[in-house]
């Protein structure tokens, strides 16, 4: 079986498995790893990057990022681009949580300013933002209203009073993916989504109050409006049950296509369909709806975050400088133009647990950031640092403008529960001065910082390999966990 032993080092932080390693590979598999991780990476994850390298129409290389871990079909922390003329679309290359992503809100506060209010802020955020099992949003949508959310995304939220018009400028796709067609979304997916709009959910999703720690690139940090000790708020959530069901429905459909076309897939979860097929087009229209749901969701949570700060600090959000820095999607497929050899080609880039990291000059980036590259937001795990990086030209050349998305799990959930108790983790965090409020005790143990690969290593590898550039570190002060 293809595994670690086949990894060939290209340069620091970059390894490759040549396409000759397995006869069904169409392109090489490239994995971004530090030397230590190259010795410990699971063979299963490598096999998945190799499996993706076998799919019809894949361009250039199948990519594993520094936070790669074993997923379903596609690895998590993976990127694959398929040519528009002969490629495929795979819901498994996006994942269940469509447009799971991260938003960062700035403030003009410092840790000292909010220290006396930390517990109150965490309590207020926990009260205002629904989280936990089947958490229901506050807004009670009517059956007919959900279609507007699915078509218009964050724009719907702004029109309904959740946020500021300027926020839209700083969201990928301006918070609204075109081509969304609610007719392609099943009633079941809508039923799952209606009660949950405007909720954080559970598992690895969280909201954190953080302060800026080390700054690695002063010029870019300044461009993004970040400085040492500044308080920021990070929101990590996605499309909730609506997105999960869109993925589940389409995997079923694609599974039938794969059977009908007698595709010889190395794994049933890799189910895919040719881009020009009805099934692929339906999925793209439905996925856009899921993505729009997620942007709406984060927009509403941002609105309640502003309200929570206003209530506790008795000052309006505008005067607290609570502007959006950026919002990134890390589970999505997008139609983009990339240079393949000497040709500019239209491809469908699947990013599963991967962040877009467009470099300087790209027109998709907001004007203010265009000279330095887009902000890349990489959340850590509960109680560990998160990072802001910037997209690079190198990423455009090597990874279809993509980089890592987080820490990447190394210990199974039950393994984490065997190793840690929720009380232990809570104490560890409070010893560091971090205020935590969570719905589920078991989730605290499952999400223990040591259950994940060290995020510091992940971002360093991404920086060393050049697929994004370290800008600033963020240190957690308060955590809301589903």
């Amino acid at each position, binding site marked *: 079986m293809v595994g670690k032993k086949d990894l060939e080092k290209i340069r620091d932080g970059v390894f490759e498995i040549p396409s000759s390693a397995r006869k069904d590979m169409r392109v090489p598999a490239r994995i971004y790893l530090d030397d230590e991780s190259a010795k410990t990476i*699971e063979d*299963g994850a490598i096999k998945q990057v190799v499996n993706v390298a076998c799919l019809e129409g894949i361009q250039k290389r199948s990519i594993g990022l520094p936070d790669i*871990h*074993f*997923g*379903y*079909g596609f690895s*998590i922390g993976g990127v694959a681009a398929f040519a528009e003329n002969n490629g495929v679309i795979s819901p498994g290359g996006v994942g*269940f*949580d469509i447009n799971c992503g991260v938003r960062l809100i700035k403030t003009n506060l410092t840790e000292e300013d909010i220290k006396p209010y930390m517990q109150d802020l965490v309590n207020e955020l926990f009260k205002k933002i629904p989280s*936990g*099992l*089947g958490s*229901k949003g506050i807004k009670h949508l009517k059956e007919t209203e959900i279609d507007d959310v699915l078509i218009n995304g964050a724009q719907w939220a702004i029109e309904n009073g959740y946020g500021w018009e300027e926020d839209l400028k700083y969201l990928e796709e301006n918070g609204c993916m075109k081509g969304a067609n609610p007719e392609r979304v099943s009633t*079941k997916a809508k*039923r*799952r989504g*209606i*009660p*949950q709009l405007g909720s954080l*959910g*559970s*598992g690895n999703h969280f909201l954190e109050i953080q302060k800026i720690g080390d700054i690695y690139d002063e010029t870019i940090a300044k461009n993004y409006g970040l400085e040492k000790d500044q308080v920021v708020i990070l929101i990590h959530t996605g499309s*909730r*049950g609506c997105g*999960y*069901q869109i*993925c*589940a429905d389409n*995997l*079923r459909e694609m*599974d*039938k296509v794969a059977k009908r076309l007698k595709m010889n897939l190395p*794994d*049933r*979860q890799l*189910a895919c369909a040719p881009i020009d097929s009805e099934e692929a087009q339906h999925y793209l229209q439905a996925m856009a709806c899921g993505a729009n749901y997620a942007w709406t969701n984060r927009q509403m949570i941002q609105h309640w975050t502003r309200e929570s700060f206003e209530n506790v600090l008795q000052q309006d959000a505008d005067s607290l400088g609570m502007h959006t820095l950026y919002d990134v999607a890390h589970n999505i497929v997008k139609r983009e133009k990339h240079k393949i050899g000497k040709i500019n080609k239209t491809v469908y880039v699947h990013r599963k647990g991967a962040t877009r990291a467009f470099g300087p000059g790209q027109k998709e980036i907001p004007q203010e950031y265009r000279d330095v590259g887009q902000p890349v937001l990489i959340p850590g795990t509960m109680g560990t640092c998160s990072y802001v990086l910037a997209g690079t030209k190198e990423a455009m050349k090597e990874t279809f403008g993509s980089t890592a998305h987080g820490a990447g*799990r*190394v*210990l*199974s*959930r*039950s*393994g984490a529960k065997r190793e840690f108790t929720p009380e232990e983790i809570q104490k560890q965090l409070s010893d560091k001065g971090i205020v935590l409020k969570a*719905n*589920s005790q*078991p*989730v605290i143990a*499952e999400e223990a910082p040591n259950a994940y690969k060290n995020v510091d290593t992940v971002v360093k590898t991404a920086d060393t390999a050049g697929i994004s550039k370290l800008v600033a570190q963020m240190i957690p002060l308060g955590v809301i966990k*589903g």
Partner: protein
Amino acid sequence: MNDNNPNFNYYDTTADIGIEVINDNLTEAFKNSALATLNLITDIEKIRPKIKKEVNLESEDEYGLLYDWITELLIYLDSERFMASEYDISITKNEDTYSLNGHILGDTYDTQIYNYKTEVKAITYHEMSIENKDNTVKIRFIVDL
């Protein structure tokens, strides 16, 4: 009906969790697959069978039916906060499909009454297996958490 000693096991995967059930027939194995999934979310044996719902599913094969069955229960949870702990169902093999029909019984999930462990997003096809031979049905599948 709900078995007081449900026959299921969990096994580790890096990111999520695997479920294994072994029974002497497909219907029982499907019931235990459901209990095992929902037991990840809350202690399923504590959910009172107060409310009854009808289920009718039809799929192209056993794999598709298992996928649809677990998905159906997750849809009830997200859309109506309904969690079922008892299943009065039967599975029929038709000419070229499989169907599952019957009733499920449970309660509206209430955080004041029931505990909460973790969220289950979906069932996956990844490494799903259904072996049915010599009066033994063995099912293995992974759920996305």
